[in-house]
């Protein structure tokens, strides 16, 4: 490194600095604001594409008609696995014929029931392939309720727009609606940290040698 040292220029520069400080700060602020706007407002818009469900569905309505709450349609199979989104076969019992007035119902019967095609539902809470999630361990094993992770879906009267991350292809519900990843409810986010947090709290298999937290295979396959 050099050792030259010119005090005069330094002096000058200090003065020069005083002269144009305003501009500099102005431009700094312009840059700052512009980037803040694009980062906070534009970026989330661009990041997700919106998709509509093939047909709408009214959870609240069905909740009234069934006896066993969510498990009436989203049930466990004999082997303990979770059936997830119902297959056509489950709907057909009631929906052999068009039921109400709703156009979605009509579409459903025409397009799917009569044609025997499964409805290509978009699954909000679809986790990536690397995730192993045992519903039964949580529902039967730990006695949790559905809302803890899925929120009050049972009270919804229609399906919200499905937002897909253009880069990862995930449903937005995994990262959570809030772009900065802040969550208010337990169900606002479904990332690994959320699982881990609850596991740590409840001391679920905190047996990892490396992290002292949960073993990886508890949630990964």
């Amino acid at each position, binding site marked *: *490194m*050099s*050792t030259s*040292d010119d005090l005069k220029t*330094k002096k000058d520069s*200090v003065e*020069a600095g005083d002269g144009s400080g305003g501009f500099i700060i102005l431009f700094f602020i312009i840059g700052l604001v512009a980037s803040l706007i694009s980062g906070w407002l534009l970026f989330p818009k661009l990041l997700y594409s919106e998709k509509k469900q093939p047909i709408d569905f009214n959870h609240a309505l069905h909740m009234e008609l069934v006896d066993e709450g969510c498990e009436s349609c989203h049930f466990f199979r004999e082997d303990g696995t979770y059936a997830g989104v119902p297959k056509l076969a489950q709907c057909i019992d009631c929906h052999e014929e068009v039921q109400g007035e709703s156009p979605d119902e009509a579409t459903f019967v025409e397009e799917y029931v009569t044609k025997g095609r499964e409805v290509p539902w978009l699954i909000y809470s679809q986790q990536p392939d690397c995730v192993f999630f045992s519903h039964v361990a949580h529902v039967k094993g730990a006695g949790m309720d559905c809302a803890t992770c899925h929120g009050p879906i049972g009270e919804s009267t229609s399906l919200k727009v499905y937002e897909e991350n253009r880069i990862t292809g995930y449903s937005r519900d995994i990262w959570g609606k809030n772009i900065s990843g802040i969550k208010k409810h337990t169900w606002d986010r479904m990332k690994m940290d959320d699982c881990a947090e609850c596991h740590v709290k409840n001391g679920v298999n905190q047996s990892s040698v*490396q992290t002292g937290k949960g073993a990886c295979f508890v949630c990964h396959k």
Partner: protein
Amino acid sequence: MDSALIPKGVRRCSIGQFALFVGVVGVVLLWGVFAMLLCWIKGLNQTNMNDYYGFALWIWADLAVIALGGGAFFTGFLRYIIGKDELKNIINYAVLIGFICYSSALLILAIDIGQPLRGWFIFWHANVHSMLTEVAFCLSCYFGVLTIEYLPLILENRQLDKVPFFHNLSHNLHEVMAVFAATGAFLSFFHQGSLGGVAGVLFGRPFAYREGIFIWPWTFFLFTWSAAACGPCFTIMITRLTEKITRKTLVKQNVVELLAKISGWMLLTYTIAKIIDTWYWAAVSAPAGGFWLMDFYSNNPLYGPWILITEVLICGALPACILITKSGRKNPFTLMIAAVLAVIGVSLNRWVMVLQVMAVPVMSFDKWVMYSPSWQEVATTILPVAYGVILIAISHRYLPIFPQERELNPIEN
């Protein structure tokens, strides 16, 4: 044409000559970039690595380049912390070389990993037990330090220096440089060591495994030591090479000699330590794992005892002896020989600690496996060399890298 950018009072070759030189090297660089893109887009099947050679040329290059880049930290350490003031005349170049080495290492690492887009996991999901984590953190930090150390140099370009902001920035940076040098030296001690730890902790690989203290195997210390010893040799070697190419003396002999002397002693002590380490390993550690020393050096087409001898004696003891004798240092030829040998020695050591580790069979029914790099590997490994040459060329042309240049090469006009 670009004379306005060239420092005052020094002579440079014509812009045409310069462009030609940079252009030629640039082609090599582009070849490397092409290979790099291949690796990134198609994946590591472009290499000759395989499941037995998970680490290969690149990791060697990383280790070697960091060891050689050790000149920066050790020279800095000597100048700022020990207070060897003369070294200010070579420190700039040492920093530049260090900067090149470290940026190269980072680049190569980014090519070497299977999932470059996940590279940041090493920081975000860091496993503190892993030597590689230690390496990544210290390496990045020290690279930051080197950047900060290199920055004032850039700002001293004649034109840039005219901008008051840059001038002041440069001045202020100069003032705190000692702090950074100290930080850098500290970090370097660590990551040089961690790189040694990388192999030393492999307790499944008796060839690599070493005992140690606390969490650090002996290789941790040996690596730091050898980097401190051979890094300056590399600096000397490159300086001399630059002098050859520019046909000027750029650094005074006494400066080089001082560095050489320190290097020599470091190398000597290192060699002794290395011999002790080797002896202990051959006599105690390896047999504990079921291996005689010669099991590691026979039954294969390449790795024979010659490699040990070359590394420790020919490229360790010999250059050390040259460098610690006054006459050896004074004679430019022997000095150069010694520097080159030391550089070879440390590179060979890194090769052994990476490639031979992979080659030695551990299970009794396993076999020696040999490896030669694919052209893509070679090209990407040469890429940083080319980039380094260009950066040096440009830096030398436009920045006052060598404080003594003006004095040593007065322009007769």
